[in-house]
């Protein structure tokens, strides 16, 4: 019997020794080295989930566009600058602004001849033509096609009736011509989207609907490798001759670690930047430890808005501006913002986010509730609450549910008994986007596709965009007066355009609010101790090309 016992003990010892052996076989721990910030090195990024694509025609997520910002060269781009300068577009491959003729329907753009792809080939007008033809190709089904609706001949390619867009032509290597079906003053803003970057010859004929994982690009970096759900590697484009920065040699994105691990890794220096954030409960601690905007934790405003949409298809809000104003007076914007974590946003009551060209802060509704504001809200709502019942839709995320309870409490004070229905985010988008859906309120948010007020006011509030399904105007706001003004504003350019949208923002919010805007998004950026500097672009967020690290 004793022999058996010793055999068992030996088996346990073998098990334990295997563990110890594995532990002692560990490679050397990575440690952040102290030193001077200089060009070169590897910048290690943490993402908890993968980007959707790294194909320029398919990628349409903000984390992917951050990387694309470092890799792409476009006709026009937002400069590597902080707000507000970072949201004013500049020519990149283009030489100056386009020559616009034919009553705003023909754009002729001169190109620089100095840009090169990471494979060494030259960038010419034909690379931009190829990019647009590829975007419109029906095999790819690119999400970029809605942004090409004004380009002559694009729809024919989308419909499979042509293979090349008749309205986009390379006159010569350095001259590109784009013909439109109608004037579109925001065209060059649209062209700043990564969809419209130049693509190399090797990619132009590739219409694989699965997209590509890597390709040669003409920005400061290029996608050198990608293993879906595991990692993405960007390397410096050694042929890059544009004016943008390219400081580190490699940007290494590690995918899949939880937010808790991302926090630990950035704190310890094993990684440099938590691109998808750290746990929301950690920001207050980090702020206390490192301060805000003092070296490790940075808070930067984004071009986005969070709001409570009011459904104008429902009797409660149809021709009922008094109640809509009352809702705006009643909601506790501070309490709502507090639920999503420390420094998650900035309270606001307007449609256009600060920093967007045309946005101007005007005090319309209270950002802080008190007895006086509640009294005002009650006064406005009196006699306008119909049967006093309303349905609020929200996402079943923790913060959204807490915010729904605050809305419930706030609206109860003006005589609305709100029942909350929570859905997973995908279900909420689908249901609220279908006309006739039975909700009175829905919680929503919007991040700019490009820095133009059209992307907020026309896309989210124009009655002309309402369909039976897939609506972005989930307030179903359809005012003939404002529809007309929105269309007129969209046809203006320059300061006149900005002034028109500014007036619309203030007018709608003051007199006939479609929503109760509550806050603008902040990007909370936590970086490693060895990260010595970076720029935050208000449109594309974290600017990888400008990062410096200690070597």
């Amino acid at each position, binding site marked *: *019997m004793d*022999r*058996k*016992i010793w055999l*068992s*003990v030996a*088996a*346990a010892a073998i*098990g334990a020794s*295997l*563990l110890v052996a*594995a*532990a002692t*076989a*560990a*490679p050397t721990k990575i440690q952040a080295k102290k030193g001077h910030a200089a060009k070169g090195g590897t910048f290690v990024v943490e993402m908890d*989930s*993968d980007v*959707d*694509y790294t194909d320029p025609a*398919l990628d*349409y997520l903000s984390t992917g566009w951050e990387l694309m910002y470092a890799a792409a060269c476009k006709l026009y781009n937002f400069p590597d600058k902080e707000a507000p300068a970072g949201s004013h577009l500049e020519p990149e491959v283009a030489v100056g602004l386009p020559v616009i003729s034919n009553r705003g329907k023909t754009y002729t753009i001169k190109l620089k001849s100095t840009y090169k792809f990471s494979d060494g080939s030259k960038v010419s007008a034909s690379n931009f033509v190829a990019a647009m033809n590829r975007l419109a190709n029906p095999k790819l*089904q690119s*999400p970029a096609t*809605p*942004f090409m609706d004004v380009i002559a001949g694009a729809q024919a390619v*989308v419909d499979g009736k042509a293979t090349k867009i008749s309205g986009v032509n390379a006159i010569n290597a350095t001259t590109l011509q784009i013909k439109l079906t109608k004037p579109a003053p925001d065209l060059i803003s649209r062209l700043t989207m990564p969809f419209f970057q130049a693509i190399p010859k090797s990619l132009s004929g590739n219409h694989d*609907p*699965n997209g590509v994982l890597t390709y040669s690009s003409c920005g400061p970096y290029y996608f*050198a*490798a990608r*293993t*879906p*759900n*595991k*990692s993405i*590697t960007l390397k410096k484009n050694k042929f890059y001759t544009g004016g943008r920065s390219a400081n580190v040699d490699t940007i290494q994105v*590690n*995918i899949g*670690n*939880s937010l*808790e*691990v991302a926090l*630990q*890794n950035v704190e*310890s220096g094993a990684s440099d930047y938590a691109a998808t954030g750290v746990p929301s409960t950690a920001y207050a601690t980090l702020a206390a430890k490192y301060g805000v905007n003092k070296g490790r934790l940075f808070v930067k405003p984004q071009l986005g808005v969070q709001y409570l949409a009011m459904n104008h298809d429902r009797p409660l809000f149809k021709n009922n501006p008094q109640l809509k104003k009352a809702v705006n007076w009643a909601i506790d914007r501070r309490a709502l913002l507090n639920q999503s974590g420390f420094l998650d946003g900035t309270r606001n009551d307007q449609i256009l986010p600060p920093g967007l060209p045309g946005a101007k802060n005007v005090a319309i509704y209270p950002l802080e509730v008190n007895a006086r504001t509640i009294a005002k809200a009650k006064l406005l709502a009196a006699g306008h609450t119909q049967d006093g019942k309303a349905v609020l839709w929200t996402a079943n995320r923790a913060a959204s549910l807490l915010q729904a309870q605050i809305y419930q409490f706030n609206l109860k004070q003006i005589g609305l008994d709100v029942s909350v229905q929570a859905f997973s985010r*995908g*279900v909420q*988008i*689908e*249901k609220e986007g279908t006309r006739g859906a039975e909700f009175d309120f829905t919680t929503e948010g*919007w*991040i700019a*596709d490009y820095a133009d007020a059209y992307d907020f006011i026309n*896309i989210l509030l124009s009655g002309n965009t309402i*369909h*039976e*399904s*897939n609506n*972005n105007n989930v307030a179903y706001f359809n005012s003939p007066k404002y529809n007309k003004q929105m269309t007129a504003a969209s046809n203006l350019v320059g300061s006149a355009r900005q002034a028109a949208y500014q007036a619309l923002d203030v007018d709608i919010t003051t007199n006939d609010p479609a929503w109760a805007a509550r806050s603008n998004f902040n990007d909370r950026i936590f970086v490693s101790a060895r990260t010595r500097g970076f720029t935050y672009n208000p449109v594309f967020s974290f600017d990888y090309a400008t990062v410096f690290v200690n070597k």
Partner: protein
Amino acid sequence: MFRYLIRRLLWAVVLFVAVTMVTYMIFFVIPANPARLACGQRATEECVRNAEARLGLDRPIPVQYAKFLQRLVIDRSLGQSFTNRQDINKTILDAAPVTASLVIGGAILWMLVALPIGILSALRPRSLLDRAATVFVLFGISLPVVWIGLVLQYVVGYRLAWTPNAGYCDFIDPAEFATCGGPVDWAYHLILPWITFALLFCAIYVRMIRANVMDTLGEDYVRTARAKGAPEPQVMRSHVLRNALLPVVTMLGMDIGIALGGAIFTEAIFGLPGLGRLAVQSLNTFDLPMIQGTVVFATLCIIVFNIVVDVAYAFIDPRIRLD
């Protein structure tokens, strides 16, 4: 044996069809539209319509299901992801080795610990070792895997930095520009996931092995063997352990089969790109083909391991006849 295998395989087909059909039905009860999500925030009706056609969502549900079966049986393809258009066969095959590394390594670990402790506890009931084992079992069963994982990850991986706190390295053939790779890095990164994954099973198996061995020790045939003067090692090997470990083999096969479908919590905590994490991501993005892919793989694992266990039974215990 042959007839038995045929019968089991036919049942496996029925089970497989039932599981995949139920997954399909559940998916379509949820009123989310993957085509809408695929078109991004500024989805137009035209884009959604085209995406529905591309994804096959414009056809009646039974037709979609029939197409899925046809593609699976004839082309041996699980299709493409709704969200990133990646080939699902490849994605599953990339994720499966990660989960297999976790599960098989974890199973070896828990058996290495559970076997000696379970047997020793049974041989020395109410001894100090037995009482310590009981406390271990109590902790192992009571503590949630998530809690154990997070504590190990924070204390051992982050504060003490004895092991990596998360991440996975390929055993062979690491990806281009990968920061780690090879058997040493692979094992080093899996130490904490193995412990986390194994602890619960370890506790369960200790309890089960102890009970089985104690029961068997009291059997008449064990007493008879000893009375006939059989040496103790032979009694233990041929009469006690052979009978006592029979249910353990069944449990082990079942547990490994189920876990290969995805050890969701352990993979999520330690950032392992395995099937469990893939399944969670797919659920979050309403990626039906990917969900189906993980379900199909998990179902196959369970079916195969069940059959393996049943066949192994016949070899371990000569009294059992499969026919």
